[in-house]
């Protein structure tokens, strides 16, 4: 149970989340898979795997390889496409009143528009998370996609944009997304990496290059959150990358994130998200915070702005 003395509620555009802990796209399926382990409705929000317009069979196997304190994955968006998602997966989530953010991935502007129109106007959807795939690194292309998605999505449904760290300036991409109408930014999609098996002397992944995730990327994700928060203090940021404890989540809040996502930690511990929530509540309480929102960006304070007595760790 979360510490009842700390207010964990978090604003996400027009929605109020019960707490700042979400799942990361691709690591919580479509929610149902986690139901044996905890009540999915208790999440701040569930972020689905990326939904594409058409059914996809994905990349060749192996799709996941373990690296030191990390995970390399190249799945290739296998899934039934938007029809299957709307017919079976979304109703399951809506029925259980799970706060749902649907990750969408298109290959053309038209596909993004169609996904946003169909999913972003469906009952039970609190937000869309735009997975930009190839265009993630180009602020101009990124802006075009976000504008289309925002235009086609119902008012009141948040449009979150997931950004990559693999750019010269993460702030430029963030500014482009904000300018195009993003309600929040998700930082970061895993940077790309490679792993080679010394036995076979070939790349470990069928797709050769994969996204790196897990504790190995946490410092990179934190750095991105820090930089974007410094440049755009009012922008809601969702930190993702290597969160597996409440302390990790606290670091992200202090760096400027309003919420965090738990991704590959779920593969290690399927009940990780609510554990992270509870640990975060305890840590905030121990530091004298009454509200999670007060911790957001707290690490940016100036050296002479000393914390109130009650905010120093006891």
């Amino acid at each position, binding site marked *: 149970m979360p510490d009842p003395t700390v207010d964990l509620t978090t604003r996400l555009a027009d929605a109020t989340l019960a707490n700042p802990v979400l799942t990361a796209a691709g690591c919580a*399926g479509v929610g149902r898979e*986690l139901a044996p382990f905890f009540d999915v409705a208790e999440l701040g929000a569930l972020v689905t795997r990326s939904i594409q317009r058409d059914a996809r069979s*994905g990349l060749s196997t192996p*799709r996941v390889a*373990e690296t030191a304190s990390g995970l390399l994955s190249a799945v290739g968006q*296998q899934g039934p496409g938007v029809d299957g998602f709307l017919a079976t997966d979304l109703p399951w989530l809506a029925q259980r009143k799970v706060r749902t953010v649907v990750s969408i991935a298109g290959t053309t502007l038209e596909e993004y528009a169609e996904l946003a129109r169909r999913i972003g106007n469906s009952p039970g959807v609190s937000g869309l998370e735009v997975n930009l795939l190839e265009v993630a690194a180009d602020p101009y292309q990124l802006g075009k996609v976000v504008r289309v998605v925002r235009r086609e999505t119902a008012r009141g449904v948040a449009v979150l944009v997931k950004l990559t760290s693999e750019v010269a300036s993460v702030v430029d991409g963030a500014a482009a997304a904000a300018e195009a109408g993003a309600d929040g930014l998700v930082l970061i999609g895993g940077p790309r990496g490679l792993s080679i098996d010394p036995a076979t002397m070939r790349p470990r992944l069928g797709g050769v290059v994969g996204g790196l995730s897990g504790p190995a990327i946490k410092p990179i994700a934190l750095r991105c959150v820090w930089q974007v928060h410094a440049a755009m203090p009012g922008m809601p940021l969702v930190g993702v990358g290597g969160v597996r404890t409440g302390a990790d989540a606290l670091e992200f809040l202090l760096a400027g994130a309003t919420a965090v996502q738990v991704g590959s930690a*779920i*593969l290690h511990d399927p009940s990780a998200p609510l554990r992270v929530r509870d640990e975060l509540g305890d840590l905030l309480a121990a530091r004298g915070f009454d509200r999670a929102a007060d911790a957001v960006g707290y690490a940016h304070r100036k050296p002479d702005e000393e914390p109130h007595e009650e905010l120093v760790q006891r």
Partner: protein
Amino acid sequence: MSARGPVQVRASVLSLKKVGAYHHLTLVAPGIPERTRPGHFVTLAVGGPDSALLLRRAFSAYRVRASGAYGGTLEIVFAVRGDGTRQLAALRQQDEVDVVGPLGRPFALPKEPVSCVLVGSGYGSAALFTLAARLQERECSVHMVVGAPTEEQLFGALEARRTAQSVTVTTEDGSVGIRGPVTGPLPDLLARTGSEVVYASAPVGTLGAVADLAAQHGAWSQCTVETPMACGIGVCMSCVLPVLGDDGITRLLRGCVDGPVFRGDRVRWEAAGA
């Protein structure tokens, strides 16, 4: 109605013994035994929450006891392959292990008391003993073929003798039993016993061959397939293999939730790495 679906428990090590080339681990894992059916598997976390190994390791359930002096126990048999299994092999009595299970779809059982052949290779045999007992409760006759590359890598040959109507042992180096692959004795055994179902737990290449032989003899086959798994619970899509559906369309199904047991005639073995 018995309990269903997986649970996540903090198990503790009751014993860890070396058996030939393998490690036989017995865990006190309340809640898991009463849910487990033959063919189910479990996943173990390696190390605590801050372990550098982020993926759980999957193992077939070897034996389960719902109640006993220590509460429910779960047994697995494993070979040391890399870091994860090396660390598991170093567990000590009373160490805690995070276990999720039972997972996957179990073996389908015949409705009639027919004759069945069970084929196990290496540690794969461990998955077959609770199945053999279940089949015998249904008055099926059970013929086991237990094979391995070497005698040291054989698992459960003696136990098979106590359990099954007939047992055939094979080793690739001929150190014990018939020399050659575990599939060697199958054609003759299938013909002789008129078996209608073949159950197999073996590496993918062997499973493809077993499925073909079963089909040639008009038997249906149930194969438990080991695909690399990152989550074991259906969220990550890493464990997929191509399987032919009732509608004639081949789809990439998840080994962890749609399997690990598949009909042998439905798996596209050549594309599944066989």
